[in-house]
């Protein structure tokens, strides 16, 4: 019997004339600079009446950024799917580019004199960490807005990483199968996903801004806090954050922060009217449970906090925002520890917040519980479940590895801070707080001032801010790419040396 081979049909290759091969880094940088350009122009235009010099500089920067983005997009071929490593290292590269641009802005406008301080301020902004080297009340309007705008961009990057980039890089194998399906529906392609995220993020920010204005906050303060609330950034136009503001703005901030810490998938469900899916979400229930338990604990702790202040502080910690209503020196050690646990656990996955993430923490508890049960019956085929469905073992393996890396980085941060002169407790607390992109705590205080940290200690915080913002993996992969490049370089050098010697 002979078989006839079917003719091979080759897929048509999409090729753009003059386009270069795929570079995810360049693509990501192009898109990020486009957003940076829009934010810079907005801040510049709104700040024209206050300081024309800085405002015009920002407008110029914005136009240049947009021009660069358009140029870069025209020369890139986006038909190929990048490898996971390239996606994640591309994110790290994008973030570094933004931070370098931000450093340049602070130096060029004379807002900060020292390069290292400018770098730290920029990194804190783009990583949505509420740590600062500045007194915000001394800043002019355009720079105050732009500083807050960096956090808005950082929050957007955080959501895009959670909703688009990580699923793209990890190619399935996510912890929650339901979440994975929802992600696929929210972001059928990376471009659509990014566009939807930007639209919804912008809309929520606008609503929060209107809320601030409605509660009587001034235009400038409203805009600054709008940028830093939904993004879970935590920068404020006031030195004492929300301590001097009334109950109205606090309530808006509490709602805004809570939304900022909520998974974008849940928000997407809410917009699509899928209340059943929302109610079924284990992570949302846990997140709300943490908020409720934390608020009750703080209110009952006898620290003199009202219920509103307790809720505000808990939401600020859980969403890793960093707004404060009072200095933490008055809080007892047990309350500080509870807040540290909340900060370390962090917000929901695929949100603008940071931390370990509620879903991961819950999965790890399930994993530890399974291993405990396995002690009694070593041959049992126990599985860890999420929303009634078993979790893939490889996803579990990655999550435990991630958790160990997370803890290891916290330890490294604490060690480096301690070497740079920070005391033990402040080093430990700040290490965890910074990797969670929260910032304030024992050491910097509730308002996140880095005054008590030495310049080397401040600078040492920046890689950990990056690790926190980009979910650690990109940083580790970028490092591994670095090592690989180094190895490749060393191999080439060895080859050349060998050739020279042989000749």
């Amino acid at each position: 019997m002979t078989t006839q081979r079917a003719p091979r049909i080759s897929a048509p290759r999409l090729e753009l004339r003059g386009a270069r091969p795929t570079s995810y880094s360049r693509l990501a940088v192009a898109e990020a600079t486009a957003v940076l350009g829009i934010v810079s122009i907005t801040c510049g235009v709104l700040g024209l009446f206050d300081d024309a010099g800085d405002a015009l500089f920002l407008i110029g920067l914005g136009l240049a950024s947009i021009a660069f983005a358009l140029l870069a997009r025209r020369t890139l071929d986006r038909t190929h799917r990048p490898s996971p490593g390239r996606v994640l290292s591309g994110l790290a590269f994008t973030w570094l580019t933004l931070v370098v641009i931000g450093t340049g802005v602070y130096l060029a406008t004379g807002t900060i004199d020292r390069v290292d301080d400018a770098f730290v301020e920029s990194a804190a902004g783009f990583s949505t960490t509420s740590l600062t080297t500045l007194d915000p009340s001394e800043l002019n309007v355009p720079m105050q807005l732009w500083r807050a705008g960096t956090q808005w961009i950082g929050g957007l990057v955080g959501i895009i990483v959670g909703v688009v980039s990580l699923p793209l890089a990890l190619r399935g194998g996510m912890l929650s199968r339901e979440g994975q399906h929802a992600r696929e529906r929210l972001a059928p392609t990376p471009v659509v996903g990014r566009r939807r995220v930007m639209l919804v993020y912008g809309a929520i920010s606008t609503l929060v801004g209107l809320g601030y204005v409605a509660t009587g906050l001034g235009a400038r303060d409203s805009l600054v806090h709008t940028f830093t609330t939904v993004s879970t950034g935590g920068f404020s136009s006031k030195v004492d954050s929300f301590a001097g503001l009334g109950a109205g703005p606090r309530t808006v901030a509490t709602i805004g922060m809570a939304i900022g810490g909520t998974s974008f998938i849940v928000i997407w469900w809410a917009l699509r009217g899928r209340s059943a899916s929302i109610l079924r979400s284990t992570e949302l229930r846990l997140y709300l449970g943490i908020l409720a338990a934390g608020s009750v604990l703080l209110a009952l702790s006898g620290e003199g906090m009202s219920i509103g202040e307790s809720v505000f502080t808990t939401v600020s910690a859980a969403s890793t925002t960093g707004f404060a209503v009072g200095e933490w020196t008055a809080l007892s050690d047990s309350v500080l520890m509870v807040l540290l646990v909340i900060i370390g656990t962090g917000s929901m996955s695929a949100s603008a917040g940071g931390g370990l993430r509620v879903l991961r923490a819950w999965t790890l508890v399930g994993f530890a519980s399974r291993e405990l049960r396995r002690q009694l019956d070593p041959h049992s085929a126990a599985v860890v479940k999420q929303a009634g469905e078993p979790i893939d073992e490889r996803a579990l393996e990655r999550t435990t590895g991630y958790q160990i890396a997370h803890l290891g980085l916290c330890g490294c941060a604490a060690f480096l801070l301690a070497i740079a002169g920070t005391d033990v407790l402040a080093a430990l607390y700040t290490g965890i707080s910074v990797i969670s992109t929260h910032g304030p705590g024992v050491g910097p205080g509730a308002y996140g001032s880095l005054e008590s940290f030495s310049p080397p200690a401040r600078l040492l915080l920046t890689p950990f801010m990056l690790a926190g913002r980009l979910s650690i993996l990109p940083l580790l992969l970028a490092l591994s790419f670095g090592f690989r490049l180094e190895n490749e370089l060393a191999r080439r050098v060895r080859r050349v040396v060998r050739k020279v010697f042989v000749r």
Partner: protein
Amino acid sequence: MNLLTSHRSSDGTALARPPRGRPNTALHVAGIALTFVSAGMGITTVVELASTNLDTGALAISTVVCGSLGGLLWYFTRAGTVRTREVFAAVGWTWLSVTLIGSLPFIIAGTFATPGTDFVEQVVNSIFESASGFSATGSTALTDFSGHGRGMLLYRQATQWYGGMGIVVLAVSVLPFLGVGGLDLITAEAPGPSSDRLAPRVSETARQLWVIYVLFTLTVMAVLFVIPGPSFYDSVAHALSTTSTGGFSPYSESIGHYDSLAVEIAIIAGMLYGGINFSLHWRAARGELTAYSRDSELRTFLGILLVAVSVVVLLLWLDSGDPVDGLGDAMRYGGFNVVALGTSTGFGNATGAEAPGDFVHWASGAQIVILFLFVMGGSTGSTSGGIKVMRVQVLFAHTIRSIRRTQQPQAVLPVKHGKFAVAEDIVSRMAGFFLLYVLLISVGVVLVTGLGGGFEESIGAVIGSLGNMGPALGEAGPTANFSDAFPEPARLVLAAFMLIGRLEIFPMLLMFAAPYRVVSDAIRR
């Protein structure tokens, strides 16, 4: 499993005698362990009687109570089934009963009866001291060391010696017919993920381990006695807590009491030996000296200690704010404390508060290194605590694999320890252990701070108790005591953490599984 013993009738016919007592492995093992502990109490009673004669009555009464209770449990029960539930129950209940009964001498003698201390606080302190002793932790609630008899202080040292190698291992050595379950008992108690079988029979393995342990103790004792400084009594006392990597001393200044470099070097050697896997010592004793150099865990352990010593010495030398003066002092105090904490012994060589060896006054970086050592501990199968170097190695490899997996999702990437691939279920178990460890630390710090402990002290004490270290940070440092640093309930929590850490979490958490099954079955019936 043949539990029947034979005897002959008057006409010489062999008869099968029914086994004595009810089958209950947990009570049986606890009975044997209590009997052994009472023997130690008896010896220290004699020492007390022959020396200071201050606490003879208390020690004698405790010996009788402990011995009677142990003897009764041993006589009226027998080893039953040794399934997983029973193993955890046996190990957990044995340690709990030994800790509680072991606190009797302190309670009866009023060791903690200082002005302003009520009876409840005395009992709490006694249980704390007993838990710290038997778990070989070395934290103390004792404020005054001078007002107690030599026998009582020696008993305190002996608790650590019992705890170092393990009282269940000791009990198993006299249980000849326990089969595979016996090895499970040793594994459940022994520090580390696995326990090597040194001899074909489990009881023989347990005996071999104790023989090495006794010989090691005698060697340390002889070396300390030869060195100028410690008396015979001091040599015995410190040998007991060095080999067990416990860290108790009959002096409030610990090893700093002698202010002698020679004594410190001898103790460092003893602590290092105690921090190494005992199966390696056993192989070396049988002439296989290359066992040390071939062991990946040992190489890593020594490497980490070397790096830690270098970093701490450098930081102490460079930091002008430290009480340490010059490179020589930095090497002496840094080296001693890193080894003491890296092996989870917890001895101190500070001659007083804020003296050079008081590490809570060192540079912050050095203290963070110390905190890392609190978590790490020594080798598996040694007398030290912590999560163990082998777990650190495997978990590190597991993390690297997770990152590599992101780049190569379909690749087969085994986790390796040395030259060997580690089975996936072992990796999973170690990751689960580590997560539980972190979870317990978080819960512990919340609890202890909630009960009134300071933040820094609580972090140090919880990590230190779980790792069986001894001293903590802040106000609970090497020259301080825990009764000043923590309120009573917090001390009880820390005592529980010491036992949980000593038994590597699982037995203490699962010891209620067997009774729970019995109760639930009864309810169901």
